[in-house]
Every structure is written in C-alpha cells, then in structure tokens.
C-alpha cells in the first residue's frame, strides 16, 4: 500500500517533468506589437484621445468578430444589493451582446482584486471593467493591463493614481450628494415642522473615492443652513473624517449613531440624518428606534429592496436610485464601441486621478420618496412588486 503510494507520487513527478520538457507558455515575440505605448507621455496621449487606435484596433476587431471578445469584470464584493445586481446584469448584458464574460468579486480585499485582474489579463480579456475595492491601490496591475493592450474602464468608482485607465462610468457623485441633502431638507420641512432642526451627518467609506464627493456635494447644500442656524449638528461632528463609515460598514455606523444619541440626545429629539447609502440609513433608523427616538428624516442611496420597502412604508424618508441597469448598459455600450474598433466615446467631463485626467461618463441619479416611487420604478418589476399597499 505504502509502496503503491510512493510509486504514484513518483509518477506524478514524472508527469510534471514531461510537462516541463514539452513546454507550455512563454510569449516573447508573439505580442510585440501590443507593447508600444510604454512611456508616460504615450499613455497620456492615449488616455486623452480617449482611444488607443495606434496598436489595437485590427487585432481587437478581428477577435471581436470572431467570438465577440472577452470582457473581464472585477467587482469589489457582492455584499450589497447594487453589486450583486451588477454581477447578474453584467453577465446577462455582456452575453446578450455576444461577449464572453469573466466576472469575479474580491471580497473587499485589495490583493485578491489585484490577482483577479491579472488572471483576467491571463485569460485574454480585451476589456476589463473594474469596480475597485480601493481605487488608488491597483496602480501597477492596471498598468500591466495597459501594457498588455487591455482597455480598463472604471465602474462606479474612480481609478486613481495610475495611467492604466481609459475611462470611468459612474453616477455623478457630487450631484448625488447634493440630491441627498436636498431630499433631507425637503423631508425636514414636510415632517418636522419649523426650523431649527437637529441633524447628524454620516459619510461613506473613506477608501471609496466617491464617498468624500457625496459628502462634499451634500455639504454644499447643508453648510449655508448650518451657518445660519436653520440646521443644528448637535454632536458638532461635521468633518468628513469624523463622519466617515469605514468600509461602508453598517454596524460601525450603527455604533456611531448609538454613541451620538446617548451622548447628545438624552433630552432632545433628532429630526434628520444625512446618510450616504441605504444600508447605513437603515442602521441609523434602527439605532434611533432602539434609543426610543421618533424616526428622523433619513436620506439614502442605491434603492436597495429593503429600503424601497422602508421608503414605501414611511420609515426611511428617501433614497437615491442609481439604476444599476443603466450604469451597466452604459458600460456595455462603451465596450461595444471599443471592441468594434471605434475607441472610447467622446465625453466632456474628466476627473484628475492624481496622474492623468480620466474621461468620465456620468449618469444622473434619481431621488426616490414615497410620492414618486411608483413612477421611478415603473420599468423595474422587481421593485414595483415591493410597492404594495
């Protein structure tokens, strides 16, 4: 028995040796054409022109017509509804468009995502869509993609600190923040009587480049009213770093809300809370309920199913829908353009990622309150089903 095992293991070694000798891999010389744009200047040119015509089109077009082409989608995780939806929609829409889709999620871990992107390059992806865990920590990997002649499109979040990005598709994040703040004000006037109003502020995960933008957008609306006394931030915490919620972690937000309520609201009522997304909004509402506070006006984002129900039942005042469907569709249309040899579509908006100006394709988000929910979700049977009386 023991002997048989040893023989087996030796056989396996022999197989390896055989594999070694016959030789697999090694690509020197075959892809030389692909690695011309290596210098920063060339990279910038490429990015600014919004296309990479010089080297790629023929090859790309050829493969596109042959099998539709391979598209990699690297998502940060599947722990929230919008990302889970994105996974499904990318798969459906890319396959419908005739592409082979490699979709992987990184469980919020940067090294995991780096390796996933590399494996997509290995798998011959021609375009890689990246929803980054941390937009600034993919530098060398994305440059590797660029060197390999792969287009990189940021999805929902900006890719910073790298030349290896061709464009970003996202909802206007500053705009989103403004909308959240306006919805909050509207709710306060509607439900909480006369000013002044007691409010608290929450921000998103600092590693997500959108989070500070949401906050900036919101504060551009709120700050003047705080200054004139209409709004009172009772805890006094108004800096983004004070208000941020690490990793967008709902439980951290809930702990912070618990602490604020017990420290500042023992004898007064809270009227409203600026929340950067739905998960955090629900955490805040739960915290207020547990503390025996009346439910404040709370903003949100993402139109997650549960929050749509809460908005419908009046527990959460508003959310902002960033229809994942639209974002995915926009991304796929860019991919179509790239793989049919037409390069990146034109856009006026760019964002400075610290190294280059990245073309940005912005979509407008939509505020959802109980009043307009049925209109907004008219085309979304899943969410419509939640709006029952």
């Amino acid at each position, binding site marked *: 028995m023991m*002997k048989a095992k*040893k*023989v087996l*293991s*030796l056989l*396996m*070694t022999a197989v*390896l*040796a055989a*594999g*070694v000798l016959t*030789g*697999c*891999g*090694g*690509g*020197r*010389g075959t*892809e*030389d054409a*692909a*690695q011309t744009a*290596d210098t920063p200047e060339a990279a910038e040119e490429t990015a600014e022109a919004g296309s990479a015509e010089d080297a790629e089109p023929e090859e790309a077009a050829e493969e596109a017509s042959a099998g539709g082409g391979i598209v990699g989608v690297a998502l940060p995780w599947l722990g929230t509804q919008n990302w889970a939806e994105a996974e499904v929609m990318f798969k459906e829409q890319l396959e419908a468009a005739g592409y082979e889709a490699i*979709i*992987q*999620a990184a*469980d*919020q*871990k*940067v*090294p*995991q995502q*780096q*390796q*996933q992107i*590399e*494996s997509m*390059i*290995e*798998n011959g992806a021609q375009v890689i869509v990246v929803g980054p865990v*941390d*937009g*600034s*920590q*993919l*530098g*060398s990997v994305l440059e*590797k993609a660029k*060197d*390999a002649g792969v287009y990189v499109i940021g999805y929902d979040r900006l890719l*910073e*600190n*790298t030349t290896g990005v061709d464009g970003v598709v996202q909802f206007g994040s500053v705009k989103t923040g403004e909308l959240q703040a306006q919805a909050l004000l509207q709710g306060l006037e509607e439900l909480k009587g006369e000013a002044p109003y007691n409010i608290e502020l929450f921000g998103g995960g*600092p*590693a997500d480049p959108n989070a500070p933008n949401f906050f900036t957008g919101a504060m551009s609306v709120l700050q003047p009213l705080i200054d004139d006394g209409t709004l009172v931030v009772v805890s006094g915490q108004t800096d983004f*770093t004070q208000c*941020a919620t*690490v*990793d967008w972690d709902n439980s951290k937000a809930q702990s912070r809300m618990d602490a604020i309520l017990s420290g500042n609201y023992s004898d007064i009522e809270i009227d409203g809370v600026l929340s950067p997304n739905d998960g955090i909004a629900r955490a805040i509402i739960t915290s207020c309920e547990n503390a025996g506070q009346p439910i404040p006006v709370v903003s949100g984002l993402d139109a997650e199913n549960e929050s749509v129900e809460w908005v419908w039942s009046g527990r959460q005042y508003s959310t902002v829908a960033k229809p994942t469907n639209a974002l995915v569709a926009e991304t796929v249309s860019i991919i179509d353009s790239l793989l049919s040899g037409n390069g990146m579509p034109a856009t006026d908006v760019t964002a400075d990622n*610290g190294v280059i100006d990245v073309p940005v394709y912005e979509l407008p988000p939509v505020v959802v309150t109980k009043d307009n929910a049925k209109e907004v979700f008219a085309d979304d049977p899943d969410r419509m089903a939640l709006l029952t009386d």
Partner: protein
Amino acid sequence: MKYVKKVLGEDLRQYTMVVALAALIIIFNIASGGKMITSSNFQNLISGNAYVLVLALGMLMVIVIGQIDLSVGSVAGFASMVMAITARQFNLPWYIAILIALVIGMIAGAWQGFFLSRLGIPGFITTLGGMMIFRGGVIWISNSISVPVPSELKWFGAGYLPEWGPAFTGMNNSTLLLGIIAIAVYVTAQIKKFNHSGDVTGKKEEFWPYAVRIGIVSAVIGYATWLFGSGRVGTSFPIPGLILVILIILYYLITERTSFGRHVYAVGGNKAAAELSGVNVKRTYFLTMLNMSLLAAVAGILFVGRSTAAGPADGTSWEMDAIASVFIGGASVSGGVGTVIATMVGGLVMAVLNNGLMLMGVGADKTQVIKGFVLLAAVAFDVYNKKHRG
C-alpha cells in the same frame, strides 16, 4: 525504490508537498486550457504573493519558537502607511522612505519582543494587542484614506530586471544570467559535496545519484529561467521574486547554519533544556519577534510598491495566510518543527490554489472554502504520517 532514495534522500515524505504543488500546477494548467503555465502568469504568481511568502519566513521562526504573531498584517500596514505619509509630507526620496518603514517595523518588533521576552506575556496576547494597536494606528494616521507612495517603490513591488545584450537568446538576459548562476552554484555545491562525501564515514559515495540530482535540478531551474525570461519584452523574473529569493537564501542560512537558528529550534523544542544548554531564551524570543516585524515591514513595502499606494486596510488578515503557509509546510503547532523550504512550498501551494481557481473563474467565496479544506487536509496528512511512522 532504492535508487530513488539514493537520489532524493531517505525521507521521501518531505516531498509530499512538492509533489502536491506540482500536481496542482499541472491540474490547473489542464483545467484552465494552458493558462497556468505561462510566463506572465508565473510572473504574476510570484509578484502577487511575494509579500505573503516574506511574512511566512518570519512566521516560521515565530511558530518554531512555539509562539504566534497575529500582528504582522497590521504592522505591515502601519509601517508602509507611515512610510507613505512621511514620504509625501516631506517629499522624501524612496530610499529614505524604505528606511523609515524598516525602522518602524523594528520598533514594532522590539515592542512585541519586549512584552514576550521580558514580561513573559504569551505571544498570542502580545500580538493580539499589537494587531489592534497597529491597525488602529494605520486608520488613525491615514484618516482611512489611501496615500500614494514614491513611484520608485513600484520597482520593488512589480518591477522587472533590465533588458540588455543580444536578442538571439529569446529571453530576458538578466533572467538568463540569474538562471545560469543558480545552476552553476548548485552544480559546484554538489560536486564539492561529492568530493567530501567520504571524509567522515571513510566510504566514498557513488557519483550517479549526484549526477541525477544535478540533472533534475538544472532542468527545473533551466525551465523556470526560460518560463520567466521569455515573457513579453520588458518582463523578466520579477523584482519582488528576486528579493524573496535573496531572503529565502538568507533565512535558510540563518535557520540551518547559525547558532541563532539552532537556538530558535532548541527553544521551541524544549525551552528548559535549551536554557540548560546555555541558550539565552529571552534573547531568542526577542530577536525572533523583532525579525518578524522587520519582515512584516518588508512585506508591506513590496505590497504598496505593487499597489502604488498605502491603504488603510492593507495587511488585513495577512497573518492568516502566513500562518497557513507555515502549517501547510509541516510545522508543528507546539513548536520546534518546520523548515524554510517547506514553508515556501506551503505558501506556494496556497498561492497556486488561489491563482488557479481565479484562472478558472471560481469566486472568492468558493476559493476560501477550498483553501480551508486544503489547510486541514495538509495538516491532517502530516499528523497521520507522524502517527504511523515506521
């Protein structure tokens, strides 16, 4: 069988993991349609996992002395974040930045070593504290925002050796040179060993097992050289891989060929006996912990070099990967057992699993499950083997 033993040595069991590793590589290569064994994938494999393997080197010694270090991920994150922030704030050149990270690593290690060796607080608790302190520290000083590092550092985390010389070799000549040096060193060592083989026992060994060994090892190194060297122009054996190889050689020598290394095993095997043999147990504890955190800083540098920025979550749960590598490499939970080479093989098993499953498009969730099973299976196999020895 007798002939095989002559070539590989008496204890064939030590090759179990090597065989497993080779089998994994082959299986994944077939399953992924030949995407596993390619130049670029192997380059990725090495540069993407060098930081874990560097941590595993230090963790091996920590586990051999019978301790555990849970803080390595946090220390790595902290050292590289301090480096990134100071470098940016004061516009420091990259070499000063690296020095800062290493010094921070050493201070962190001295801190942990102090509590373990002087106050006798178990390593598990000391470093659990360290894990929280340094993780909190990273988030605190960074305000939870990623900070770019000097661009030269990218060379350490994702760089390649220079191209030079004639093109007819069809390879990166730096890699080729390294491969040739490696083979030459191995061949001379074997020939020297053969020439000395009769010195002690008085009985000269046969030459053919040496020849077979030289043949096999040269073929493997030669193939690896070709694999790493024949990638896209501009690529080679990766710099983080080269740093790793240097560290492996260094730590192999430390663990096998220095008094300090012997002391590490002695303390882990029987602390009281070590003490009565003249080993300074406290010093050994202290230096081992210091070394671990220093290597954590090195790992942090390699990682942020590759990421081009230091992030607040850098290092989260790295300690678990390092610990898993050491145990898959056959180290004992109670200390005293484990080798550098086996640990590296253990780490590569994890890395290849990760990489292969990704190439096959298996999700992170299932990858985790599979890695968990592999860890259990490897250790269970080891325990079974030890029970049924002889």
